[in-house]
């Protein structure tokens, strides 16, 4: 639920990185934070467990400059990926304007990707939002791994994107490969959905 401030000509929109546990959602945000450090005036907020797993969310406000005369601020969030944290995961989705689904390319994670995407659909539905209508981008993460068997991209497309038919990227959040293109794509899709108010 983006907020458009007509007085300060500012738009705030919420983009959530969703996906299975240990899939690289936090690593995506950390890469963005490192890459655009000079444009992000504050510290990245992470609420995590002692074991360094996301407990509630990570948060990164990101000023992307002017679009159609409006100063656009996107608030990037991650959800906790672990199955047991569904209650908090649902809370983070409240008011979401765009979603990046970070899938894990490892063969052994295949089922977890599908379950997590299904979980996204269910949790969006609790806010009366359809996964087919929310601005969504898929990211097939960990393509840099060489010591693990990876799922062919065609298989991941078939598993996750055969019905959604949304933009997808092969990426590596650790090396930064396609992290920024993923971000740019979801920002443009989100802004396109807000266009009717930004006239």
């Amino acid at each position, binding site marked *: 639920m983006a907020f458009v401030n007509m*007085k300060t000509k500012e738009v*705030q929109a919420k983009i959530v990185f969703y996906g299975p546990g240990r899939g690289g959602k936090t690593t995506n945000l950390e890469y963005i934070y490192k890459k655009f450090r000079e444009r992000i005036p*504050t*510290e990245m907020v992470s609420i995590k467990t002692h074991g360094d797993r996301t407990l*509630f969310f990570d*948060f990164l406000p990101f000023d992307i400059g002017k679009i159609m005369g409006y100063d656009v601020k996107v*608030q990037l969030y991650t959800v906790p990926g672990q199955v047991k944290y569904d209650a908090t995961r649902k809370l983070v989705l409240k008011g979401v304007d765009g979603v990046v689904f970070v899938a894990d390319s490892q063969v052994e994670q295949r089922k977890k990707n599908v379950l997590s995407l299904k979980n996204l659909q269910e949790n969006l539905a609790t806010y009366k939002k359809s996964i087919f209508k929310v601005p969504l981008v898929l990211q097939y993460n960990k393509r840099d791994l060489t010591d693990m068997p990876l799922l062919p991209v065609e298989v991941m497309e078939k598993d996750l994107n055969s019905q959604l038919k949304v933009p997808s990227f092969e990426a590596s959040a650790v090396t930064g490969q396609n992290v920024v293109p993923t971000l740019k794509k979801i920002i443009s899709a989100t802004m396109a959905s807000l266009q009717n108010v930004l006239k």
Partner: protein
Amino acid sequence: MGSEYDDSATFSEYTLGPEQLDSIERVLQNDLIDSGVHSVMLIDMAGNIIAQNDNGQCDHDLYSLAALASANFAAVDTMAKIVGEEEFSLLFHKGESENIHFSKVNPEFLLITIFGKDVTLGLLRLKVAEAIKKINEVW
């Protein structure tokens, strides 16, 4: 499946005009900052900042504060439902020199107030209640 979804909710966004924001900011200034509150924010449940005001001596990271405050409120609200309460009416954190008070304005908005020792909780709650009444009249 389509009928279960609210299409307008999918692309929901909302806009407040300059006059409405001016009115809200006036309420924040007159009712809260002038009563000794250090900093006040009107935020939505998604963590966006709608309006903000402070006494000029605060340098908080407001965007992070808003994100955390909305998440905190949502977590407490969910806990209330689990134990069978509609909601917990007082949400307040006390610190050594700064305190933070959360108040629901309506189902979509929260008022977050940061204040020090010079304002009592009782006065603060009275002032917040008055401010919320006035903010709700702006809509």
